[in-house]
């Protein structure tokens, strides 16, 4: 059985990736799973300088999901390169680095710093607010999405995945903008904006009022968007949003994703990546599929 997939020239031993921000840099998972069995570890978002993140509470429960407002707490790209790359290179897995920024310059700075680092892929998180444009996320406007992609691509030393925000009217238009900007792949979906109010305290649960909804609750939206984007661009697509089982992973592949990422499931179950990989293999065996690439985009 072939599980290997190719994302923008990088060979992954299987299509199971981790979703940024839900797997740290893998250290917390090493006691539970064999990191060598993961196709690609996508690390938490890193910025040019350390970011403190948002005040707590950062987590609210939602029906079938979770709303987070971590606010991209990270120790900065230098600390990342020093601590996390050597750890992950101790395993036979691909490394993708998720990049955060508040201005195009900040994004570019991280990509420049990583150009010579020993990582396989970059993932540009364009859901960050653009402080020069009044805090509107880069990812909701085609022109901004194209501009930040082009600027980062110009300095990138690795193939560039652009991670799309689902909080838009037309995600295919944003995907096309990323393609024009030079993206080598796209990933989706990031979290849906949502909020939860504690009716007894008469206040939002999260310190930031709203946060990002993820988990099984968002899966239908994610599958729909992956299908739309896969038909709109000529790039590899990484699908995510609520994947909890091997069949969920197969659903994203059939919608047009070339690989999938496991997010919230990691928080709920530290062995989720392995369980999903095993489930996908079992599904392929049961339905007589020899090559995982044969599942990609099979629905009409």
């Amino acid at each position, binding site marked *: 059985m072939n599980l290997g997939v190719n994302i923008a020239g990088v060979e992954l031993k299987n299509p199971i990736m981790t979703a940024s*921000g*839900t*797997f*740290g840099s893998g250290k*917390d*998972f*090493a*006691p*539970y799973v064999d990191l060598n069995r993961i196709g690609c570890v996508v690390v*938490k978002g890193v910025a040019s300088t*350390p970011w*403190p*993140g948002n005040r*707590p*509470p*950062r*987590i*609210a*429960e939602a*029906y*079938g*999901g*979770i709303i*987070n407002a*971590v606010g991209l*707490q990270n120790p900065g790209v230098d600390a990342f390169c020093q601590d996390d790359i050597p*750890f992950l290179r*101790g*395993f036979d897995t691909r490394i993708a680095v998720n990049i955060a920024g508040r201005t195009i310059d900040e994004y570019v700075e991280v990509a420049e710093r990583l150009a010579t680092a020993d990582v396989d892929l970059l993932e540009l998180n364009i859901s960050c607010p653009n402080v020069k444009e009044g805090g509107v996320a880069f990812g909701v406007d085609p022109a901004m999405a194209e501009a930040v992609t082009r600027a980062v691509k110009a300095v990138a030393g690795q193939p560039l995945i652009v991670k799309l925000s689902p909080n838009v009217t037309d995600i295919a238009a944003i995907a096309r903008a990323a393609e024009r900007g030079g993206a080598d792949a796209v990933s989706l979906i990031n979290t849906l904006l949502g909020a939860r109010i504690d009716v007894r305290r008469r206040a939002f*649960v999260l310190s930031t009022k709203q946060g990002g909804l993820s*988990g*099984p609750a968002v899966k239908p939206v994610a599958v729909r968007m992956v299908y739309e984007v896969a038909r709109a661009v000529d790039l590899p697509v990484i699908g995510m949003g609520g994947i909890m089982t091997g069949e969920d992973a197969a659903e994203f592949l059939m919608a047009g994703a070339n690989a999938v990422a496991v997010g*919230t499931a*990691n*928080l*709920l*179950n*530290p*062995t989720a990546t392995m369980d999903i990989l095993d489930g996908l293999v079992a599904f392929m065996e049961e339905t007589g599929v020899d090559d995982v690439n044969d599942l990609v985009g099979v629905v009409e």
Partner: protein
Amino acid sequence: MCQENRTGRVHCMIVSNEPLAEDVRELVFESPAMADEARPGQFVNLYCRHQGQLLPRPISICEIDRAGGRLHLVYACRGKGTREFADYRPGERVEVMGPLGNGFSLDAAGPENLVIGGGVGTPPLLELCKRLTGRTTIAVSFRSAPYLIDRLERCGEVLVATRDGSAGVRGNAMKIVEDRGLTGNIFACGPTPMLAAVQAYAARRDLPAQLSLEERMGCGFGCCVGCVTKVRDASEAGFSYRKVCKDGPVFAAGEVIFS
């Protein structure tokens, strides 16, 4: 890499699940592996059966019965998850992950220990009290009817306060501590305002103190950076956010910033 191997979520047999007070219950479940590994001040994640509620409910370990291969938890029935747990009966299974977190450092235990607990902050201190050497004074407060007192009394002198004055002093445990000017190596767990008062008291009297904190959690094992608290450091901002689930739940009182 040489990492310890750990299992994730496991289903554990429930031995008992009895009320201790109004809306407070003690859950005892079997897990020789967890009982073997657990230290006082650590917690476990309990998971709901209601598949709309996916997040863990972190509950501290109250007693560790290593010989019997069991853990005791004491929990307040508050929201949907804990009310679900209240319905579990002996012989059923509960889904658990743990033990998690750092636990109290027993190295700090001195000739004089001062243990301060408020509400369901008291149960996490019981196993600690059992292991402390030296003289231990235990000041604990409850909303109304006290619980676990008999078990605590085996470990030291117990001073009780209640919010409604139905038993002991009216007020919270810090009122007892302040009124009597109690001293010792402090171990505290309870509501945030009480912990802030403990911190101030320890600073004033220059007493070493460990505080067990609470925060809303996404994972409970360190991966989501959801459960942070401000901890003093040398950075420009003067603090950084540290994870309650992994760097804590127990912190040195001096390093915590309540604000």
